[in-house]
């Protein structure tokens, strides 16, 4: 798939947006040997090596490729739902050049040999960079910490129990303490499972009207509060995997104000949808954590705009029709999102809720920084992971045309404005929208 030697690429007459350096200017970007050579005004055809592909961007945005910090990929064990190959096709169509896959696989990514397996599969079948997060506890059982040192040395970029919370505070304390010695980041799904109980959507009026058991916001804030206390105690590095409600943002703000190593993500779903979207029991809107009230969504967007929320994730979670075409309470939770994350988030820009550069920072620069990855920047010398974005192109999502193996998108038939039109990974063009 990879050609041995790539021709240099000049992305000409673009709007260069580099959130890592707070730059937003009209100019050209030159890519040579898989790395960014320079980004400046007026490189032009005269200033490039012989044989350079010149791509006329006509004022479109050139930005660092997106780094999706939370995506479920079915390898190993659930290849029917998604493979590294299918996920990476969805990724490039969405402008994502780095996927951080989650350890809730079968078997779980809790052993260095499985990290190695993921890396080999990514090299052989992927089109984007794929880095696994490793399990924080063995078998995701929440009892015994994994080999954090050896897993990190093998290439795990962070440690998480995926969609599960570590309810045992002693286990969490020791994991944070131990991980600190290795500078490892712990990413945690903040939900008290006992308090959520049988809850399947946000607790409140809408759940009551639908006759569904509600999941209270306090299940999230309680776990986040506990975690912050443990971070205070241990000095560990901590990232909340997906915050959804205004109360959690207050907790997060206090932690950051106190100077703790605490950061957080919000999923594209929680930034652009709310509980009312569930409508008549639409299971593609059944998520964990659940979609919240509109006030919570607005608070999340405001937090993103001011940088309190660090990262936007797709929380990509492919589910078969068989587990979605069920009564709401019995259906599986999760939505695909890697391909629609960028266009859906551009809604926030078009609505004037957030600046483009701020959004792109949360989609690329911040996750790369938190995970210690070289992407997320257009700095000269950085790997040429780049996306060309047409911010205005109108299109309608057709779930049958999405690249993921599963169709469970909450954005089916959504009218979106803007999308990735060209995706470049390590200097090679891997996607072009025609």
């Amino acid at each position, binding site marked *: 798939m990879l050609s041995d030697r790539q021709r240099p690429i000049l992305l000409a007459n673009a709007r260069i947006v580099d959130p890592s350096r707070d730059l937003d200017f009209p100019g050209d970007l030159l890519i040579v040997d898989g790395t960014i050579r320079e980004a400046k005004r007026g490189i032009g055809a005269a200033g490039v090596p012989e044989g350079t592909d010149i791509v006329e961007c006509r004022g479109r945005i050139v930005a660092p490729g997106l780094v999706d910090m939370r995506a479920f990929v079915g390898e190993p064990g659930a290849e029917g739902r998604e493979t590294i190959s299918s996920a990476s096709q969805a990724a490039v169509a969405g402008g994502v050049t780095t996927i951080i896959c989650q350890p809730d696989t079968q078997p779980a990514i809790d052993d260095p040999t499985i990290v190695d397996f993921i890396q080999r599969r990514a090299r052989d079948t992927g089109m984007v960079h794929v880095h696994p997060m490793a399990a924080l506890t063995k078998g995701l059982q929440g009892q015994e910490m*994994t080999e954090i040192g050896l897993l990190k040395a093998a290439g795990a970029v962070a440690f998480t129990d995926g969609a599960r919370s570590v309810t045992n505070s002693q286990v969490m304390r020791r994991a944070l303490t131990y991980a600190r010695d290795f500078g490892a980041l712990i990413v945690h799904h903040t939900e008290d499972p006992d308090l959520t109980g049988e809850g399947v959507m946000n607790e409140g009026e809408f759940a009551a009207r639908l006759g569904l058991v509600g999941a209270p916001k306090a299940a999230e804030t309680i776990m986040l509060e506990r975690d912050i206390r443990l971070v205070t105690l241990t000095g560990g590095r901590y990232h909340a995997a997906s915050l959804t409600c205004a109360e959690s943002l207050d907790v997060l703000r206090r932690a950051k104000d106190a100077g703790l190593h605490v950061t957080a993500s919000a999923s594209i779903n929680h930034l652009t949808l709310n509980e009312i979207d569930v409508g008549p029991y639409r299971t593609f809107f059944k998520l964990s954590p659940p979609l919240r009230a509109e006030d919570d969504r607005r608070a999340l967007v405001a937090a993103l705009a001011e940088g309190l929320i660090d990262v936007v994730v797709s929380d990509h979670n492919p589910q078969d029709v068989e587990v979605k075409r069920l009564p709401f309470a019995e259906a599986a939770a999760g939505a695909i999102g890697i391909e629609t994350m960028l266009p859906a988030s551009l809604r926030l820009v078009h609505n004037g809720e957030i600046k483009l550069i701020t959004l792109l920072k949360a989609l690329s620069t911040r996750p790369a920084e938190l995970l210690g990855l070289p992407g997320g920047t257009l700095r000269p010398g950085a790997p040429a992971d780049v996306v060309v974005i047409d911010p205005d192109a109108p299109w309608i999502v057709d779930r049958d045309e999405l690249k993921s193996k599963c169709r469970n998108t909450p954005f089916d038939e959504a009218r979106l404005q803007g999308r990735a039109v060209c995706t470049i990974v390590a200097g090679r063009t891997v996607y072009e929208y025609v």
Partner: protein
Amino acid sequence: MNIAPKSSFVLSSRHLLGIEGLSYADIVGLLDLAGEFVELNRQIEKKTAGLRGRTLINLFFEASTRTQASFELAGKRLGADVMNMSVSSSSIRKGETLIDTAITLNAMHPDIIVVRHHASGAVELLAQKVDCSVINAGDGQHEHPTQALLDALTIRRRKGEISGLTVAICGDILHSRVARSNIILLNTLGARVRVVAPSTLLPPGIERFGVEVTRDMREGLAGADIVMMLRLQRERMNGSFVPSVQEYFAYYGLDQKKLAYAKSDALVMHPGPMNRGVEIDSIVADGAQSLIREQVEMGVAVRMAVLEALSRNLPNA
């Protein structure tokens, strides 16, 4: 019998409950006396008369082969009558058992009781209930004074002087009474003490023990004269305090590569029993820099010195 130590050192206190509370002079006096016993123990005629007529009880609430054997031999070489008692801790409720046992034994008029107990502070509690001398042979995660003394004797005989040496104590500091006693003793004698462990095996506040703290073996062993390894209990290896044996050995196990960070003439110690392949590699444990067998020899001498020095203080001595 014409052999007897020349030193007339007398321990000023009735009991030996910990290194804490011993003066510099106490420690040096014990080490000097122990040094004489090392020589006596290497003769064919090993028996002296310091404890003739005395009764020594080894009261072990926690299983121990080497410490118990070491005290038994020490008592016998000094001419005492030695009785070993192993008490199962599960028999009766613990507090009751301990004090009841103390009162019962006290009625038999022993002169010295050597006690090991799984609970920190238990030996001191027992000492309050008896009229004889009590020696702490290890209480919970608190102190193990004779181990620290034998370690010091071993170091002193090899390096001449403890003052100015850099000693790295590595491994499970959190649960180690050996570490606590050694930190106090080595600091008293003027060594520079470092502790090296993953954060999960360091007690909070360890920085205020007068030690340098590091989580990295390379940093901790750099320039060390002595590398003292601690035992990691099996139940702590599999995810509770450290993830696995493989990972622990990779980052904290003493192998030749890590030992090379220390001074070229650094010496390796371990209080035993060792977990080969966990905290220490066999090649190092059995290698030329290892003092581990010598520690055992010093153990008998140190315990003889402690018994002798305490007995000189006993009534009718």
